[in-house]
């Protein structure tokens, strides 16, 4: 069975569905497949953010290291993006990223993708818009979680 090209794998991901085929092609040129076993780390807080991930199967956890042990912030599952620290200096991961299940990802090398964005600002703009939407969605979800909606009920 022939391996599925990265381009096709990326095009199948819901988080990238708004990108043009040519944009997917450019991204695919910077990507490859990797598998992480449950309990292994895709990234570590403070380490160089020289890549990011598109989750194909499985689930990862964003964690923050604390004296009492890791704090689980959020989980990210299939079809979603992990990592935007590669976009901005100092290009360091803010959180640990741990595989909860056996997780298949497409790894995108960030220096490669940034160079393509610099060379083709129109592509770069479309990509940034997509990433900005992901960031906004996560911010809004985080705000709602901060409201503790499930805790506020009719006090009769």
């Amino acid at each position, binding site marked *: 069975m022939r391996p599925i090209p990265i381009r096709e794998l990326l095009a199948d991901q*819901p988080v990238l569905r708004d990108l043009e085929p040519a944009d997917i092609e450019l991204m695919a040129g910077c990507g490859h497949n990797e598998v992480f076993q449950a309990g292994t780390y895709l990234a570590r807080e403070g380490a160089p953010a020289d890549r990011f991930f598109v989750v194909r199967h499985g*689930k990862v*956890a964003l*964690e923050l290291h604390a004296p009492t*042990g*890791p*704090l*689980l*912030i*959020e*989980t*990210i*599952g*299939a*079809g*979603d993006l992990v990592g935007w620290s590669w976009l901005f200096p100092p290009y360091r991961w803010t959180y640990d990223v741990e595989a*909860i*299940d056996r997780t298949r990802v497409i790894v995108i090398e960030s220096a490669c993708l940034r160079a393509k964005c610099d060379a083709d600002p129109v592509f770069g703009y479309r990509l940034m818009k997509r990433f900005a939407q992901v960031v906004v*969605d*996560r911010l809004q*979800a*985080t705000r*709602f*979680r901060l*409201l*503790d*909606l*499930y*805790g*506020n*009920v*009719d*006090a*009769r």
Partner: protein
Amino acid sequence: MPADAGAVATSAGRRLRPPVGPMVPTRYRVVSRERETADTITIGLEPVDAPIDEPEPGQFTMLYAFGVGEAPISISGCPAREGALRHTIRGVGATTRALCRLEPGSVVGVRGPFGAGWGVPAAEGSDVLVLGGGIGLAPLRPVIREVLENRRRFDRVAVLIGARTPADLLFAPEIEAWRARSDAHVAVTVDAAPRGWEGHVGLVTTLIDRLPITPTRATVFLCGPEVMIRVVARDLVGAGVDAERIFVSLERNMHCAVRQCGHCQLGPLFICADGPVVTWATAAPLLAVRRW
């Protein structure tokens, strides 16, 4: 039956008939009590006197903790299916805390059932998404059971459950049984979890566009905190779900439950009678109004 059956004699020798009607509670005995979470229990009730009408999933009753007060509680299990009338109650005020303290053998007052239910049969033939957040899962439990017990009548089925933490999940053993089924997609997400939790952590909305249903042919049953309902329904409509096929259960300050007192009014609707289940097409413009 004699005309004065049930009448009681007063000290003056007169015979008075007990009042009847929707404002008079019927006595029910607590026959089971299960702790769901630290502040939430599920009680099973059986009638002491004549039973109330068989409720439809989505309807509610007014439960009266004698000597304390009355509160509207959604029905989490119907007698015809489970033998007892089940209510899942979160103790957050004087009345609901009193109801949560009830032990088997205690007697409560029940009025109802009231309001419009979910209308599950209307979803037959379509994809079904049941989405419940927090205590909002309670009125959806009968929906999930009805859909899964009649699985072949529906196309793809997804259940999405949100809670504050894993310890705040209602019906945990039952959820595990639902998750074990191969003919339904059941996902649980919590706002916060300790390390070791294997489910999702994040808002329910983050899982919506990953669900294995086709939005344009889906019927949605949605219940939870009102802000959650608004956010989720907005996202569902954005994904292509018809607002007429999104059914939401609204909570308002129900007192009389018979369209008289007006405490539960939401614009032109009396939520106790026109609701609590309404379509999102009906609810959206009303919920968009600030301070009726």
